[in-house]
Structures are given as structure tokens and as C-alpha cells.
């Protein structure tokens, strides 16, 4: 316990430096600003803002990026409440009761309780990361090559099960990502693979380029086809701070949502996406009068919003302790870390304690800033929401182009973004969900390396994956997950959940 406090005080010493505090503030502010815009999710936001962090030292850059992430996440909830458009999957549930509250002139209270719930959830999950970080990474250090490989297989399988749409299509996306990760120079033999003679491909595909193309640009193309139906709530925003009775009503849901969201967020594979759904179901079941749900019940905002933020936070755990990104946002974070030549994984915590603990402390500070920034700025958000899409998307195109160009000062990268934008558009049209592709892309090289090493040690015997207890357990869990997901009953529920 004493260790924990030592570590946290180291973290706060790093995070509370004037520069890092300013970066955290800027990140949260800009993240909220962009995240509020309908049709711009956290992945696109982070991809777009990545270049802002190039000139900063690694710790500062990661602090700012996580700030951007929380900001974008909370901005998405603001949009869900005020315009009934979920910025991303995790905010879908918030539209149900949040928007109803807004229509009744209680938008302020919905936003207020969302911010308060998020802050409480953020505080709890930050402590959880601090407590679990060290033990988990010491477990991870016991992992052999085979165990690592199996862990990645498990993580990818979870991601498949939790993606929307058909299972074979989601698995295909992961594999395509892995296939794309092999493009470039082979690490062992220095032979060029799948470069087709293009010199720019020798270093492999730039991660941010693919993310921006497949998420940023393809998203614009998708949005342009949907007729714009955006109705910013016309009722008064009303007071922001919930009264005592509303706080009493929300206390239980916030506590339960925090727990549910924290646990689900740790799952490798995008567990965080389930948190808000699970919390909403739970609150509805516990409620004395379930019919209030869907008609502006404050519990239906407080619970899921807390779960949302808790999951967003604890999904950093697999990234920071194992080096395995559980979702597309974390995959981008890995990309960002690599730009700053940090190799994510269990060694971070021991080799770069100031980075790990600084980030943990900055997470809590970021959550506090979220609360302080967002409440007074609600008026500004409402005005931003009125910016029509016809002006928004050309601006996004310009910022994305500048951002990608600045990545390597390469005009070729910008051309690649356009190509991947087209690729992403085709994926959408053919009913593929692109998020698993990013995970496969990020993990592909690492998986190949571990597979190669594991097989080298076992002299080509595949049984090594089943002989080692850790690896065998992970693979059995993987098999169970696949079987469960294929069961008709679970399949139907899974479809229901993603329909919102």
C-alpha cells in the first residue's frame, strides 16, 4: 500500500508540472470541442489531433492524447443528450433517456449528472489502474512467447465477438489487418514483403494513415449519404447542478455503473462497449417502476455514463500492462507511443515509471478538468452543434490532410489516406465493421514475432501452445468465447444489444 502512495505521488509530481497540466487541459478542451461535433467519433478525433502532439516530449504527448480521448468521449455524450445522435457505440444508451430529459427542459441536469457520474467513475477506475498496474505487469513478465501469442489471439477473438454484424466478416477484418501488417520489410531477413516495388511501402503502412482513411474519410463519405436530420434540442438547458433528490436517485446507479464498466473495460477485446448497455439493463431491472425508462429517467443517464467513463479508463489496463490494445482507440494510442519511440508492454511500468504513473495521475486530473470545463461551456457546445455538416466536413478534410502530411512531411501519405478512404467506403458498403482491422494491423507484427519465437523454441511443434498452462488456458477461453458467440440465443441478444 505504501508503494502505491509513493508511486502515485511520483505520478502527481509529473502530472502537476505546469506544462503537463496545461497539456492535459488543452487535450480535454480540444477533445471535447471536436468530440461534440456529430459524426466525429473518438477514433477520428484522436487521429486528427495526433499531429498536435508531435513536438511534445513522450510523457506530455500521452497525457495530452488521453485528455483528448476523455474529452472526445464526453463530447459524444453531450451530443447524444442534446441532439439524439450518439457519437459512438458507447453513447447509444445515453440517447434513450438523456435526450428525453433534454426535451423536457432538463438537458442541464442530464449533462450535469453525466459529468458527475463520469468523474466518480474516473476516480475509482484510476485507483483501479494504479492498484492493478504493477501486479498485472509482473504476471505479464512471466509470459513466454507462446503465452503472448495466445493472449493476442484471445484479445482479437473478444474484439470479433463484440463487434457489430456477422462473425465471419469480423474475423475476416482481423485477418486482413494482420495481412496488411506484413507489408514492408521483414524484421528477420530484411526482405521486402508485398511492397510491389513501391519504395514508400518498405517501412510498412503508417498506422495513423490507415486509421484516418478508414475511420476519418470513410466516415465522411457515409455521413454524406445519410440525409442530415439533426435537431438540436429547443427546450431550455435548465440548471446544471442536480438537486439533492436527483443526486440521491443517481447515487446507486453511479456506483453500480462504475463497477460494471470498470470490470468490462479490462477485458481484452472491446469490453468497454458493453458497459453502458449492461448498466442500463441493470438499472431498468432494479427500478421500482421500469416504465420510466425511455421517458427521461435520470438513472438511465447516470448509470450508463458512469459505466462508459469507467470502461474508457480501465481499457488502458491491457494497453499499459500487456501492450495489447483492447479497442481501436487504444490501437491508435499504441501508434502514438511508437511515434514517440515508446514500446508498450509490461516493461513500461518498471523502466519508465514516470511515464506510467504520470499518465495515471493525469487521468484523474483529466477527469476533474472534464467536470470543470464542460459544465460552464454547455452554451458553447449548443452553438457548435448548430454548425451544419456541409461546413464541418470540408474542414475535417483539410485538417486531416494537414495532419497526415505533417506526420512525415510526405505528400505520399496524403495520397494513401485517400486510397484508404476509398477502401473504408467499400468496407462499409459491403457490411464490414472496420474496427477489428485496426487491431489486427497493430497486433499483426507482434503476433508473427511471438509465433516465430515460440515455434523456434519448440522446434516447430505446435503443441507448445497447449503444453504451456498459461497459453492453454487462454486458448480454451478463446474457444469458449467463439462457441458462446455462435450459440443462437447469444447471437440474438448480441444483435439486440447493438441495435441499441
Amino acid at each position, binding site marked *: 500500500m505504501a508503494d502505491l502512495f509513493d508511486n502515485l505521488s511520483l505520478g502527481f509530481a509529473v502530472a502537476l508540472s505546469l506544462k503537463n497540466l496545461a497539456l492535459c487541459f488543452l487535450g480535454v478542451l480540444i477533445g471535447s470541442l471536436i468530440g461534440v461535433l456529430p*459524426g466525429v467519433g473518438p477514433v477520428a478525433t484522436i487521429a486528427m489531433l495526433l*499531429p*498536435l502532439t*508531435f*513536438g511534445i516530449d513522450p510523457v506530455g504527448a500521452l497525457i495530452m492524447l488521453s485528455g483528448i480521448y476523455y474529452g472526445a468521449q464526453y463530447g459524444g455524450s453531450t451530443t447524444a443528450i442534446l441532439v439524439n*445522435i*450518439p457519437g459512438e457505440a458507447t453513447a447509444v444508451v445515453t440517447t434513450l433517456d438523456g435526450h428525453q430529459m433534454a426535451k423536457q427542459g432538463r438537458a442541464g441536469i442530464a449533462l450535469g449528472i453525466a459529468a458527475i457520474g463520469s468523474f466518480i467513475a474516473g476516480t475509482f477506475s484510476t485507483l483501479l489502474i494504479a492498484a492493478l498496474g504493477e501486479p498485472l505487469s509482473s504476471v505479464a513478465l512471466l509470459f513466454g512467447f507462446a503465452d503472448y501469442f495466445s493472449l493476442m489471439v484471445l484479445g482479437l477473438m473478444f474484439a470479433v465477438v463484440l463487434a*457489430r454484424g*456477422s462473425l*465471419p*466478416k469480423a474475423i*475476416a477484418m482481423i*485477418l*486482413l489487418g*494482420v*495481412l496488411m501488417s*506484413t507489408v514492408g520489410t*521483414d524484421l528477420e*531477413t530484411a526482405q521486402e*514483403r*508485398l511492397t*510491389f516495388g513501391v519504395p514508400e511501402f518498405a517501412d510498412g503502412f503508417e498506422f495513423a494513415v490507415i486509421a484516418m482513411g478508414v475511420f476519418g*474519410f470513410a466516415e465522411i*463519405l*457515409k455521413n*454524406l*449519404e*445519410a440525409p*442530415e436530420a439533426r435537431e438540436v434540442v429547443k427546450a431550455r438547458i435548465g440548471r446544471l447542478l442536480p438537486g439533492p433528490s436527483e443526486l440521491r436517485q443517481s447515487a446507486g446507479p453511479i456506483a453500480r455503473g462504475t463497477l460494471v464498466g470498470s470490470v468490462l473495460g479490462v477485458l481484452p477485446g472491446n469490453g468497454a462497449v458493453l458497459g453502458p448497455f449492461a448498466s442500463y439493463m441493470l438499472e431498468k431491472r432494479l427500478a421500482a417502476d421500469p416504465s420510466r425508462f425511455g421517458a427521461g429517467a435520470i438513472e438511465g443517464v447516470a448509470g450508463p455514463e458512469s459505466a462508459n467513463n469507467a470502461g474508457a479508463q480501465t481499457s488502458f489496463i491491457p494497453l499499459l500492462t500487456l501492450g495489447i490494445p483492447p479497442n481501436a482507440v487504444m490501437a491508435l494510442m499504441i501508434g502514438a507511443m511508437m511515434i514517440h519511440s515508446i514500446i508498450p508492454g509490461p516493461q513500461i511500468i518498471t523502466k519508465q515509471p514516470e511515464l506510467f504513473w504520470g499518465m495515471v495521475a493525469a487521468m484523474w486530473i483529466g477527469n476533474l478538468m472534464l467536470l470543470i470545463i464542460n459544465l460552464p461551456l454547455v452554451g458553447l457546445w449548443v452553438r457548435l452543434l448548430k454548425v*451544419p455538416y*456541409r*461546413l464541418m*466536413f*470540408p*474542414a475535417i*478534410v*483539410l*485538417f486531416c*490532410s*494537414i495532419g497526415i*502530411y*505533417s506526420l512525415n*512531411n510526405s*505528400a*505520399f501519405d*496524403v*495520397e494513401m*489516406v*485517400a486510397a484508404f*478512404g*476509398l477502401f473504408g467506403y467499400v468496407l462499409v458498403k459491403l*457490411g*464490414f465493421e472496420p474496427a477489428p482491422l485496426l487491431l489486427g494491423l497493430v497486433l*499483426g507484427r507482434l503476433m*508473427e514475432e511471438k509465433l516465430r519465437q515460440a*515455434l523456434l523454441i519448440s*522446434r*516447430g511443434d505446435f503443441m507448445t501452445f497447449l503444453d504451456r498452462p498459461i497459453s492453454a488456458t487462454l486458448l480454451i477461453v478463446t474457444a469458449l468465447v467463439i462457441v458462446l458467440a455462435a450459440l443462437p440465443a447469444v447471437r440474438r441478444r448480441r444483435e439486440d444489444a447493438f*441495435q*441499441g
Partner: protein
Amino acid sequence: MPLTAPQPARTPRGALKSPQDFAAGLFLLALAAIGFFGSLGLDFGRLSSIGPGFMPRTVALLVAALGLLLLVQSFLWEGSRLERWSLRGPVFVLGAALLFAWTIRPLGLLIAGPLAVLVAAAADPRSRPLEVLIFAVVLTAASIALFSVLLGLPIPVWPAVLDRWL
């Protein structure tokens, strides 16, 4: 922007029951073929020491298998119809990015910026010419201030010709 696209009405049609899955299967097969044949020249290695060709070819085969599965599925199970593809959006939005890529070095942000905004805006029939023009100028000024002045990114601002001159 709805999170899940509205599913087109499902009507029974001939032998092909899910055109979208059929097209998706073909798409996967095509990509798998690129991956497989593109890496044929690389050494596959042995299991005890896998070569650079192992991963691309194995994964390409798995992708192909899933492509085939989708093809078979599309004849067995009802599924979505192919959605309408639009041309205007992709042409202008992606065209704007390409144009930016080609003009940023020779002409600088001062010209590449507004050009990209104007071309992108043409993707939406609701765009208003005057509004877009003003917006393009303001956005370019703002991004020069932010990226070049404030953040100091080495992005060309002036046309290369002028730059040599100044």
C-alpha cells in the same frame, strides 16, 4: 447520422439470397489473391524456423477461406441487398485529399488549403458557393496560424517559387 444503417427491405430473390455477402466474399478473395500471389517469391520456411512468406501466405489463405464461406452463405441465408453507391461524395472528398497531396509542396498551404476545402465542399449539393469561399479563406488562415506559426510544423505555407524569392 444513425449508428446502424437502415436495412433495405428483404425480399426473396432468385438463388442469390444476399448480394452484399456475395460481393463481400468476392472482395475478400481478391485481396487474398493479392496477398498470396504477391508473397509467392518469399521463403515459406519450416515450422521450426518460419520464413518471411509464412505469415502473408497463411493469413491470405485464411482470408480466402472466409471469402468462400461468405460466397456459400450468400446462397443459403437471406441477407442485405447491396446498398446504393454514390459517386459524388467519394470523387470530391477523396479528390480534395489527392489535390492537397499534389499541390502542398509546389504551391504551399496558402493555395492548397482553400483548394482542398472548395473541392471537398462540392461533394455536398447543399453547399453554398459564397459561404464556402469565405469559409475556405478563414479556415486556411486559421490552419496556417495553428500549424505553422503556433505549432511550428514544417509545412510549406507559400508557393515554392515565391519562397525562393522572399
